[in-house]
């Protein structure tokens, strides 16, 4: 389902306009990597907003205390791995739907961050991050904001992994047919952990980038990304039941979603109605592609 919306709104058609659109898209795109893979294996990751918020706050808080940026990155990496392992382990252990698990884990993460910072989530971010997400930012002299380049790099890696790594093919198999995957020697446990760690990692990256927008920091900064990542994945054409799709589709989904959102915001239609539309879209798609079998077929 490749829907490519042509940029039609005239106000956007300027270098700044295009760039700011792409910058927004790049953050969403990075955040959606994990969601794509989580959906591909037949689950979903509802802890993404919490992880984004966590990264945002951790970066700002530690930086304002003078920690070197490199060390902060390592800290974020460690946190991402921890969250990912938690999600992966819990959702493998007992066949519990990842939706419930990641919801709980997300809540724990947000709470933990608030506890650690005692509610004071202000801080500052390095200047280069602010310029990374600025529409007029430059990267090493190239007139393109760093976040966009970062998204391109991440996309390239993810797409490569999907196609050429054992993990990538295994996760497609797992999402397509769980039982056959186990018989085909795929390790569901390991795959899940990898997927959720990647998801948390990308969430951290997105959260760090978001710091460049507002300067301040908040745990809730990731909240809109819950439904916008799901939108991007669904609109891009990856089935919510797993096995079918690829991050490439999500890329187009991200672009469409960002353009659509900008368009609607420009006309005063808020995030709320978008959310309603997403819900309806999900229902329509699943009705066409993913209904459960009738009991009679299981006798």
């Amino acid at each position, binding site marked *: 389902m490749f829907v490519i919306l042509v940029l039609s709104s005239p106000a956007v058609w300027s270098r700044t306009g295009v760039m700011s659109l792409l910058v927004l898209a790049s953050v969403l795109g990075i955040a959606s990597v994990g969601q794509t893979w989580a959906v591909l294996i037949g689950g979903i990751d509802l802890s993404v907003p919490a992880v984004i918020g966590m990264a945002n706050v951790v970066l700002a808080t530690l930086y304002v205390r003078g920690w070197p940026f490199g060390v902060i990155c390592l800290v974020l990496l460690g946190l991402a791995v921890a969250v990912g392992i938690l999600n992966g382990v819990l959702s493998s252990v007992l066949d519990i739907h990842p939706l419930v698990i990641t919801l709980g884990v997300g809540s724990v993460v947000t709470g933990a961050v608030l506890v650690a910072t005692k509610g004071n989530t202000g801080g500052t971010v390095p200047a280069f991050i602010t310029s990374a997400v600025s529409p007029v930012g430059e990267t090493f002299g190239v007139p393109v904001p760093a976040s966009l380049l970062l998204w391109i790099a991440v996309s390239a890696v993810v797409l490569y992994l999907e196609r*050429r*790594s*054992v*993990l990538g*093919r*295994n996760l*497609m*198999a797992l*999402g*397509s*047919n769980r*039982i*056959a*995957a186990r*018989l*085909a*020697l*795929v390790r569901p446990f390991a795959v899940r952990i990898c997927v959720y760690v990647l998801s948390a990692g990308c969430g951290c990256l997105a959260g760090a980038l978001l710091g460049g927008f507002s300067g301040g920091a908040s745990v809730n900064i990731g909240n809109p990304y819950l439904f916008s990542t799901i939108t991007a994945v669904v609109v891009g054409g990856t*089935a919510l039941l797993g*096995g*079918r799709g690829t991050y490439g589709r999500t890329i187009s989904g991200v672009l469409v979603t960002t353009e659509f959102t900008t368009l609607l915001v420009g006309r005063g239609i808020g995030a709320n109605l978008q959310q309603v539309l997403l819900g309806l879209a999900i229902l329509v798609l699943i009705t066409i592609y993913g209904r459960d079998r009738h009991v*009679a077929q299981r*006798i």
Partner: protein
Amino acid sequence: MRSDEAQPELVVELQDIQHRYGPTVALDGCRLQIRPGEVHGLVGENGSGKSTVVKLLAGVMTPTSGTIRVAGKTQRLTSPAHAHRLGIVTVFQETLVADECTTVENVFLGSDGLFRRSRSRAYEMRAATEILERLGLSAAALATPPAKLSLAERQTVTIARALVRDWRLLVLDEATSALDLATRDRLFTLIAEHRDSGRSVLFVSHRMDELRLLIDRATVQRSGTTVGTLDRRQATSRRLLEMMIGRQDLPIAAARHGSSGPHREAEVVVSCHQIALGATTEPFDLSISRGEVLGVAGLDGHGAGALLEALAGWRAPRHGMIEITRGGEHHRVRGYRDAFRRGIAYVPAKRQEEGLFPALSVWDNLAVATLGRHSRFGLFRTGPIDRGVDEQLARLGVVPRDSATPISALSGGNAQKVLIGRWLAAKPWLLLLNDPLRGVDLGTKLDFYDRLQVLAQDGMSVVLLSTEIEELLAACDRVAVCRNHAIRAVLCGERLSHAAILAEMFGQPETEDVRS
């Protein structure tokens, strides 16, 4: 013996029933006539269509074409509730008990309206107690939650559920397999009483001794078609088995290889010492030689599949040990991954549920098990894998040859080849095939038997489970027959014939081979 009434109205009649599951034909030209006041047996091998008939009568499915008549009127059974209203009640082979309801509630399950009870609690209690006592269940068992009852007791509850209804036809689908002897005898007494008062019973079973005790007439199914109906006097075990075999006009038997198969003195590569597949089943021994094709036969649910899964390391046997011998060294198989690493490959049975990845391409389906072998740091080298994929596609003759094709575009036979190719690509020395050619066309089958022979001559050992006896005869050197989760006999050479295999599957003394 009853006297024949002049044209009694049939209780239930199935006429020219055809039923398909997608492209698979389960029933083709099925005819069944059940008279009032008779116990009617239904027999046949695996795949003969028996369970489809049961599901149609139970109202679980509606036939693709054909007519069902109940008491003379044509009916379309839209649901189990509808079948019950027409007086047809069914007891399935699987024990269907709801654990969160009491025993009494289970007995009366489904008999109420949505909110209204159809009977008072007192009545239910009385009626349930009465019927369960007649079937041999103690009063204490009545008060026990069903989850704590034994398997036989749970099955008794489902039988009671059928009996408390207002019924004219009782369908028993292998319902006695879970019962103990005492309960079974009480059940048969009850059946006889009901029969005498004008009700009818359709008794589906593979147990010849039970059939001989009960039935007035019997219908034989073969490959989805009704072969014929025999009267009690004519329905000897031998005659029934003969009808089940029938005249096979597949050229397969003629194509049976005349090579040195069964007399090869080859080294033993796998030996099973006193393994038992279930908690209470008989232990047995089995050994497999290098380069042999061993067939495994058995009725559904009698352990043939479990044997293969045990050999694959997928499901450990309850007792006993499976040992492989390679290069003079003995190893125990420890689990599925270990077995694979040592060179044992298992091709599962139901390719849609257990084998294929429907959303992915032929390439993915073929390469998935061997990706790890050609990879470094988690990234695989496309070169060797592409070569391996193409090799399998060529050797197995898959059409179309393009590995980028989505697997959903392939025919059943070709998809099955891809699945087998996945495991062949791992170059195993022991290949376990669980009913690999079900639903595959004849040409593909003959082709495949040849390839199996080539593999065997190269030193690969093959275990082939099949529900089609002709296939085993064509492809295998020896055939092991399973019954009640244990191997009862291993047939080879002169003793290897369709009739012999069938006899062992049913637990009957061997009948003569009827084919000329």
